[in-house]
Structure formats: C-alpha cells, structure tokens
C-alpha cells in the first residue's frame, strides 16, 4: 500500500496528537469540569459552561465507538477506546466527504464489476 492510501484507509492512521482516554463527549465534559473548578473563585465562573452540542458527524463518530464497546467491551481497554475515538473520527471524515459527492438518482452502483471501454 502506498503511504497515502494507508493513511486514508488504515482506520487508525490519522493520528490526533494528545490522545483522549474516553469517547469524545465524555472528554468534552471532563475538560469543562477542571476549568470550572479552577476558576470557581470568580462569580462569573460559578455556573459551569454547558458542553457544546456535538455536530452530527461527531455524534455519529462517537456512536460508532459506543457500538464497538457494546459489542466487544470486554476486549476494549481504556487505551483502545481512546484509539478507537481517533480512528472513528478519521472514518467520519471519509464518510462526510463521500456523502458530499453529488450523485444523480440514476447514478447506479458498480455492483457487477466491469471495466468499461468505449470504442475509439
């Protein structure tokens, strides 16, 4: 495999430096909490900021990880879960790009694989 292709389809290939140990939503909550505690002396910070709502893509990426954990939880360590979050985000990027490609309703699938050739 070429390096680009490996990166594109290797799932864990798109590294996001600074690994999280839990799914994205949980991490977002945790990041909020210490910040709120640290600044609790100021009245303005007394009310914790609610976590930002997830985009549809982020939610899908997170749901994907939760599905895997539900199915294979006994095998998935905390470190694995963190890795899966990164990999799932990468897959989501591919899916989003695929779904954005304009197709007409009569663009049929290439299920029966063939190699089209036109007459010259």
């Amino acid at each position, binding site marked *: *495999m*070429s*390096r*680009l*292709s*490996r*990166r*594109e*389809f*290797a*799932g*864990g*290939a*798109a*590294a996001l430096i600074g690994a999280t140990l839990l799914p994205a939503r949980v991490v977002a909550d945790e990041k909020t909490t210490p910040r709120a505690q640290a600044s609790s002396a100021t009245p303005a910070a007394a009310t914790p900021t609610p976590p930002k709502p997830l985009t549809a893509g982020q939610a899908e990426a997170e749901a*994907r990880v939760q*599905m*895997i954990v539900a*199915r*294979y939880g006994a*095998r*998935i360590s905390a470190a*694995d879960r963190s*890795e*899966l979050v990164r*990999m*799932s985000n990468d*897959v989501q990027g*591919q*899916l989003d*790009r*695929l*779904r*954005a*490609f304009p*197709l007409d309703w009569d*663009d*049929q*699938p*290439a*299920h029966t*694989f063939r*190699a*089209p*050739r*036109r007459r*010259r």
Partner: protein
Amino acid sequence: MPLGDDILFASVRDLSEKLRKRELSPVELTDAYLERADSTGAAINAYATVTRDLARAQAKKAEQEISAGFWRGPLHGMPYAAKDLLAVRWYPTTWGAAPLRAQKLAYDATVIQKLTDAGAVLLGKSAMVELAGGLGYRFPSASATGAAKNPWNPSRWTCGSSSGSAAIVSAGLAPFAIGSETWGSILCPSSHCGVSGLRPTYGRVSRHGAMALSYTLDKIGPLARTAEDCALVLQVLAGHDPADEGSLPQGEAQFVWPPHEKPSPSRLRIGWVTQQGKGGPPAVEAACRAALELLRKQGASVEPVAIPDGAWVPATTVILYAEAGSALRPLIRSGQVGELVDPAAKLGGYLYETIPAADFETAQRVRLVAQKKMDVLFQRFDVLAGPSVGEPAWALDQNLDTVADLPDPLGALGNLCGLPAISVPCGFTADKLPIGIQFVGRALDDAACVTTAMHLQAATDWHKRRPPAL
C-alpha cells in the same frame, strides 16, 4: 563453480534463453537461489517460508523435461517466490499474520497451479504485511516475520504489503515474484526497491486461493527485473477462472504477449498527471520528468493533465473497509486480531464492521462515475504517468502516520476503477534510494503500460542497477 551475480540478477528473458539452450541447469540455478535465501534472504527478512524440498523437486523435473526436449515455455525451470497470501498445498500460508502461523491449506492457489503447469520452480513464500495491511497498520514492523529490509539500504523499509516479493527481486534472490495489490501493494514496494511491478486489470488474474481482503479491489500480479519480464509472467497468470467470481471472461482475461501490434513510441500519447505526488522531494518529480523526456525524444507525446476531482479516495476507503470487515470477520469476531503485531491492526476491524450499508452503496455508485470519467480521459491518452510514490523508501522505525501526506489520485482511481499499472525504476535520490514512475492504462490495456515501460527501459539502465552487497 558457483553462479555469479550476472546470472542471479539476470532477467527472466535472459535466463529462459539459457535454460532452453541447456546452457544453465534449473537445479543449479535453484540451488544458487536457495543458498542466497539462507544468507541474504534471512538478513533482509524476505521470506516467510522457504519451500526447499518442493523447489528441488520441481527443478529436477524441469531439468529432466528440458533434457528430453520438452519445453513448456519461457518460465520452464524458472525459480520464483510467491507472496504468503497464496495457498501452496500443505505449506504454511500465514497471510503474514501471527494468529495464522499454523494455517496450512490442502490446495494450490490458481496462480500457483498455473506457474507449476508452466514449469516454474517455487523457492518460497515471500514475507508480507499482516493481512496485506487490510486492517490498517502504522509501522513497517507490522508482520509476523518483522519488517522486510530494503536491499538498497537495510535501514529503510521495502514498503508493503508485497514487501518480501519486492525485496527478493531487488536483492537477486529470484528473477520474479508474485505480489498482490488492493491499493498500492505492488506499485509502492516495486518503486521503493527499484524493481518493475505490474498491477493487472481487475479480473484478469484469478484470486482463487489468495487471501481475500477486498473482493472488488484485490489484484494479483508479478514483480520482476524488467517490464517485459512482468508481461512474460502475466501471460501465464492471466485467464478466466470459474473459481473466482471476479474473473473476466476468457476473451478479456487472457493476455497475449507479445501483442499483435506493439505501439511504437512515436504513437504513444502520455498524460502527465500534475497532482500525483505533488509536494514531494524535488528529486522524485525531476526523475519522472526526465524519464518522460526520454520518451518524448523517442516520439511520444507528453501532455500535462489534471485528474478529475471527486470523492475517489473516500469511495475506495469505504469499499475497502466494508469488504475487509466482511472478509476478515472471523478474525475480528474471534478476537484473534488482538494477536496481530500492529496497534492499528488490532482495532481496525472493529471499526470496519460499523460502515453503514448506505455508504457502501454510495461508494459503489461513485465508483461507476469514476470508471466512466476515466474511460473518457483515456480517449485522449494511452497511458497516464506520475511518480509511483511521492517519496523514496521510509526508515524501518518510521511511524507511517508522520510521513508526508502527498496526493495519490492515480493510486485511488487506478484501484477503484480496476485499471492496470506498472511501476518501473527511473532514477535514484542523492541517498541512492530508488525512484519509480508509474504508467496507468485503460482497462485491459495492460500491454500499453508494459510497452511504454519497455520503451523507457530500452533507453535507460536504471532497472539493471544492483543494490550494494548486503
């Protein structure tokens, strides 16, 4: 007197002539390569299994037949290696994966059978990336046999996943080897190891008896010293096989070599794909441009062309994920993926199982759009050209996620559309690492890729260079 490097690094064509004229003994040649497998081969992790007894028996049979005046063709008595994802009866077929170390199959893959029928001599199973990289990998060490070392510089990797196949040809351990490509697995190792590698049109070569990674993307093809050698091997491998549902009808699958009409360079129309490998080291682009200039001097037209934009990479990715998730499901469900070497491979399968069916279907629709667009493009060109890989060989300990992310539209589209391609050497970096140029052809125009590469090899000697002594 032991056979020297001039023989061990000779082309299939030259060796074949000597074997046919009985100037060279298949047994002597096989023994020389087997000896080299134990020394050089072991030093660079090129082999998963050496099939010594089988090789000697096949070589002896070939010698008897040739002595009796029975000549099977250009591969008669010719030693070779086969990627360890191809079944060889009762020998280990590990797919490069630790959990499958003990796997032995009771039959030969179709390509192995065809090569046996042609009188070729199987030296061994070449090392490969675990599961052909199908569940992802991040490090060159992603193999049950460890990273294969690049003969041009053992601190560099061969690239994958046909790692051992490329290393074996490059290091003079066999005149040709069989590899496979789902996305880059023949072209990248060929380029990084300085050999010629041919990815045939999808469906031309049977995958029966080969590990399935992606049913609509997998192709099997040869790696050899010259483009012509690749054609000689493809002629034997190609043909319809009812045991492979993706196999083309015989009229399309067969590959006739030499072609009835060999295009002269003056009639060649080459499109230089401007996006391919853009942003890589200048030496790579310069070497490819110099190669095209040589073809232009022979009369070929060379014109820059931009590949049409589209979701080709995501479509190929989604198809590969979904198909690998299905093909490798027994390993995923059983948890055996946890025994794989690479951290990405241990988890990738879990993710692949979650690809929505609607997205897989969308990817297949994008694929047909891509095929039609490429077919239109090939009205103007016989072949498209670009760097095989934007960069030379990476370090053995390189985290592959950290290397430059260069555009590879020819790789994505070529594999998505099932198009043939060949990578041949076209120069070296200042560090003496090989650089490869690829020629991609229309569906079933494998011959156009080969003849273009042959015109280049007629004008250069990059493919004749040998790596420094290991």
